[in-house]
């Protein structure tokens, strides 16, 4: 099977996304769930770079710009997310995601 490099890149990012998804779904530790979500975000970034590299680009810096902003947002997300983990830990003395159901309706 002869695959274009772009397709390889996309397969790579799909696989990374699914690893992140499976990790986020299967683990009960909140930190690991967050890390799984980080991996999914990274997979999205990989796509940006792949399309920037192989796509037809009218404006050469756009893909890179997207990734830079996405990384900045991811940094903010990680900081807030881990602060939340610490708060959860303080309230319920563990960080099992299933136990964090205080906002249940």
């Amino acid at each position, binding site marked *: 099977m002869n695959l274009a*490099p772009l*397709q390889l890149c996309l397969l790579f990012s799909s696989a990374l996304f699914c690893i992140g998804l499976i990790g986020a779904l*299967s*683990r009960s530790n909140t930190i690991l769930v967050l890390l799984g979500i980080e991996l999914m975000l990274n997979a999205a970034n990989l796509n940006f770079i792949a399309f920037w590299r192989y796509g037809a680009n009218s404006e*050469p810096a756009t893909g890179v710009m997207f990734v830079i902003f996405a990384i900045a947002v991811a940094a903010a997300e990680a900081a807030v997310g881990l*602060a939340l983990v610490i708060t959860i830990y303080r309230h319920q003395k563990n960080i099992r995601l299933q136990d964090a159901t205080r906002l249940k309706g």
Partner: protein
Amino acid sequence: MTAVLILIAVATLCTAAVAMALRNLIHSALLLIASWTGIAAFYLWAGAEFVAFAQVLIYVGAISMVVLFAVLLTRQSRADVAIAPGSLGRVVLALIAGGAVLGVLVGAVLSTKFANSSATTPTVTVKQIGQSLGGAHAAALLVIGVLLTVALLGAVVLATTDRAEKEDA
């Protein structure tokens, strides 16, 4: 060229998968650092050096530290490390969901015919990035700055001891 890509991809995916499967949180975090480094290597491969440096600085440098701190701050006793009984079902469910998404994505990627890409690598110098950050994307840069400030304040507020909350409650 392609061989390097496949090497990077396999290394990144393996470390990520093992990190997600490990019992020891510290080891997972360390393996994820390796995985993020692999992604940075991919950016380098694709010719986006600046993004690669940003990836290394922010993920490998900063986020990994925050994660390690969080792991250490929420270290628990040995007792609850054992897998809870109900978790096997969740793992199976997770694998089904992940497999379904992977199948859909791979099918879509393989069945799509991509226009033949340009052979030349687009080059972006740091200067160009700087100019577009200061020019076309200046507004976005400002918004990101505000977002980061708010996230910082939010994280501080969340992580401080909640004396005030107890008074309210």
